[in-house]
């Protein structure tokens, strides 16, 4: 559809053989706005990854490897956040952001995407940390490293592939997210899904460019899937269940 001319796109029966054109893509790219939405989405995704990992990595390591009182309660709490309907988080934060005057900023969307992803990311990363043999960190500690040093120098490099996979899943969730973005974003902070949604809800739909932008929205998804599919499957399915 995204490669069809307007006449071909609207023809019935559908024309399977048509002269492909890339005009639709050029049109989408030439519209200044779409590149800006793309940039917004990427920026929001990267900042979400950054904060989710900084906050989540140490916690998931401790929950996976250390024994202490109250650990089970924290585990349960993290899992049960999944039950909370996002709309119940959205309403209060919408009001808070409104009072702070930061509606329609990328920062407000980043904060909400962190909220959406944090407990899931902690849960997935716990699974990756659990695979490290116990002896390694003890050896490091006996050598007189401080715990934080041992963690950063020795443990983190070992789980790097798992962390990359987690980062990608977080990015995809942020990239795909509609509910928070469509409510908080105005013209300045609009993300790709919001732009797509606005396309669809217009009265007269120009199918060609719309399909082209939908394809463009899927490009990062396809790239990531082809790179890290194995860990991605693990993170999206078994990681989501229990470890």
């Amino acid at each position, binding site marked *: 559809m995204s490669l069809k001319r307007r006449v071909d796109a609207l023809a019935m029966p559908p024309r399977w053989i048509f002269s492909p054109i890339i005009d639709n893509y050029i049109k989408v790219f030439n519209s200044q706005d779409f590149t800006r939405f793309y940039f917004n989405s990427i920026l929001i995704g990267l900042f979400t990854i950054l904060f989710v990992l900084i906050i989540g990595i140490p916690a998931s390591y401790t929950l996976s490897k*250390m024994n202490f009182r109250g650990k089970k309660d924290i585990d349960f709490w993290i899992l049960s956040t999944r039950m909370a309907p996002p709309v119940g988080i959205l*309403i*209060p934060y919408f009001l808070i952001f409104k009072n702070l005057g930061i509606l329609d900023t990328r920062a407000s969307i980043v904060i909400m995407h962190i909220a959406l992803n944090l407990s899931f990311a902690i849960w997935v990363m716990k699974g990756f940390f659990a695979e490290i043999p116990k002896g390694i960190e003890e050896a490091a500690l006996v050598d007189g490293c401080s715990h934080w040093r041992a963690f950063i120098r020795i443990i983190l490099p070992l789980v790097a592939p798992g962390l990359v996979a987690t980062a990608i899943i977080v990015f*995809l969730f942020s*990239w795909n997210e509609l509910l928070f973005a469509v409510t908080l974003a105005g013209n300045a902070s609009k993300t790709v899904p919001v732009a797509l*949604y606005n396309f669809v809800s217009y009265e007269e739909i120009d199918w060609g460019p719309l399909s082209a932008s939908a394809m463009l929205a899927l490009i990062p998804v396809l790239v990531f899937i082809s790179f890290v599919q194995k860990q991605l499957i693990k993170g999206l399915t078994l990681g989501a*269940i229990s470890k």
Partner: protein
Amino acid sequence: MAPKTHMKKNNTLNLENKKFIVTSLAPALISLILITVVPFVINIINSLRNYYLADPKGPTFVGLENFKQILFNDANFWHSLWITLLFTAGCILIEFWLGLYIAGLLSSGGTFRNIIRSLLILPMAATPVAVSFTWKIMYSPSLGIINYFLKLFNINGAAWVGDPKIALLSVILVDVWQWTPFMMLIMLAGYMSLPTEPFEAATVDGAKDWHIFRYITLPLIKPVALTALLFRVIDSLKTFDIIFVLTRGGPGNTTETLNLYTYLKGFSYLRIGEASALAIIFLLIVIAISQIYLKYAGLEFGGSN
């Protein structure tokens, strides 16, 4: 002398450990409080108020009025609850059996398994707006590919998402397309971890395929399947994107789930008080359904196997 120094070392290690545990958990726990406790408290406060966002006079305290209104006077609420349950039941039933069936097929045939498995992540990872939009084109009565194919077989197509009678079913189909792979991948992992002995024994005893499935496969795969089901149940109760893009709750309110109803109440009608009350009721319903499910399924939430 030796044991004493050893103990001293242990003590400093313990203190070190405690410091590490606290400092590593603190940022995450503070964030989780901000994500869960704070919004919940704000919701409770607002649910007790008459809070119309466009009203310049601001909110006034009304006690439990919003809850009374919703539970006893609001047909739309009960309607949306019913739609939510229908939607969830429809999605879960189809996705479960379809996922189980395809996983069974894939677990025996090895050649294409890996290719199919990587293809199957696409529906889960693809942007739901883009997916819903593609389905919207396919469903379209005039442009859509679905009606075109039906016509080739002399079947008159339908308006799909535009027809109040089948709009919900059309939305369910998209959810099935998107999430059956999730069920399938988990069950496939379950199948591949099954021991082979019971199956060999059953085959030797001459058991029928159906009986092997019913009395050996199903019980063995049950724990994995039940956990996967729980997550799908919770997630489909909260489905937003595909319904919002495909129908926005319409036509009429035939596809308006509780999630959508709460959203529209808050952000289309700006009735923050009622929307907050709805959000609380919604949360309680999700918790209740999960608890009933857990009890019935005999699972322990958060327990590791």
